[in-house]
């Protein structure tokens, strides 16, 4: 059985990071109910693996479990979301976006950013969430997402370019509407 001491160590390691766990699960699944179920399941899994956790960054440790739980869920129920084609050439992504006069992005509205991020393929969404919202280093992202550090950098680059493209398009639509 769990001793009381180990139990409180587990709660100390996990409970402070429920916001981060939920944020990641919500962005990966794009669904409130699924996100809550996944956080709960991930915490139960974390309990099972807790014997193998020997200190260190408990947030990255928990996020790794949350991420894996999300992927298990997506593979089981929404496998099509894991195979979204994505233009690999970074130069093609913002081919005609260079227009310093219309796009200064100073007043990018949050709803548009939310939509643009939701449209990204899941493996690009996850590096953005871990970097921009959780402030993880490339090395930590590499551990959580189980990819090499170089891949973290190129995925982030492509994800940001894709977001810029989407926001440019929505910005231009907004300009057209105003006209």
């Amino acid at each position, binding site marked *: *059985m*769990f001793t009381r001491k180990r*139990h409180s160590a*587990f*709660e100390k390691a*996990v*409970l402070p990071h*429920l*916001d981060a*766990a*939920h*944020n990641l699960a*919500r*962005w990966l699944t794009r669904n*409130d109910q699924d*996100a*809550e*179920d*996944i*956080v*709960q*399941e991930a*915490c*139960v899994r974390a*309990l*099972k693996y807790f014997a193998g956790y020997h200190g260190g960054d408990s947030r990255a440790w928990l996020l790794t479990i949350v991420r894996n739980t999300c992927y298990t*869920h997506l593979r*089981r*129920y929404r496998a099509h979301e894991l195979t979204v084609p994505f233009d690999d050439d*970074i*130069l093609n992504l*913002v081919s005609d*976006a*260079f227009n*310093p006069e219309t*796009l*200064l*992005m*100073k007043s*990018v509205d*949050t709803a548009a*950013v*939310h939509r643009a*991020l939701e449209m990204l393929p899941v493996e690009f969404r996850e590096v*953005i969430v871990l*970097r*921009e*919202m959780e402030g993880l*280093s*490339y090395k930590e992202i590499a551990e959580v997402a189980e990819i090499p550090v170089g891949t973290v*950098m*190129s995925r*982030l*680059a492509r994800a*940001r*370019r894709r*977001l*810029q493209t989407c*926001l440019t398009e929505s910005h231009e639509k907004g300009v057209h509407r105003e006209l």
Partner: protein
Amino acid sequence: MNCRETLTMLSGYMDGELDLVHRMEIERHLQSCPECANNLHEGCAVQKSLQSQLLYHAAPMGLESRVLAAVRAAEGTQSHPSRRFVRPAVGIAAFTGVLALVWFAAARIPAAIHEEATTQQVVSSHVRSLMVNHLLDVGSADPNIVKPWFSAKLDYTPPVEDLRTAGYPLLGGRLDYLNDRPVAVIVYTSQKHVVNLFLWPTAGPETKMTTRECRHGVRLCQWATDNMTFWAVSDLNAHDLTQFAQAVHAHVSPLDQCL
């Protein structure tokens, strides 16, 4: 450094993840290329908007207590009986005979008490499920909906079968709490009577199907396969309830029908 290389490394530059040599190469390129410099500005604007608190999905109210409840329930199932009996081998052999006798007598009493407690809980839950509006957490006649719903909430996946052809349409399922653990209840109907099928994993031996009458005219049929315990409870008569149990058993363990 050309534009393609710069764009690939621009993220690392923005995040302060590049070494000095690459940082300087990028800065040199940015000074001579307005297009890449503009990309950097845009990238920084996007980065800033992504860090807005409005995009952050913090844990909703109640999630922490839900997680704690699930973790506590899981702790109850995480005991390791094998470890509790690890003792030095010396001396044990001498006591084995005595222990076996004592244990044989003692095990019968707690097991009977335990079974009576489970019976009371199962019957109460069945009656409660009919009284208030808490029969179903997930209402669907499709096992492909009911089963994944359970597997997301339990540490085991209960077998959910479509028994419509046998005369028992599936209504759905709900979670219940039994013997200090969450368990699956699969709800069927039989001639307009509700049948609650409780099932949870066990490591015990297989047990034969037995049907008995409990209070309130409620009948109970229980059996266990090598890894799952089943308790069907309903106000069906004993014969019909046993038939239902046999139909469940035939679908769940098709290779083992002579229980």
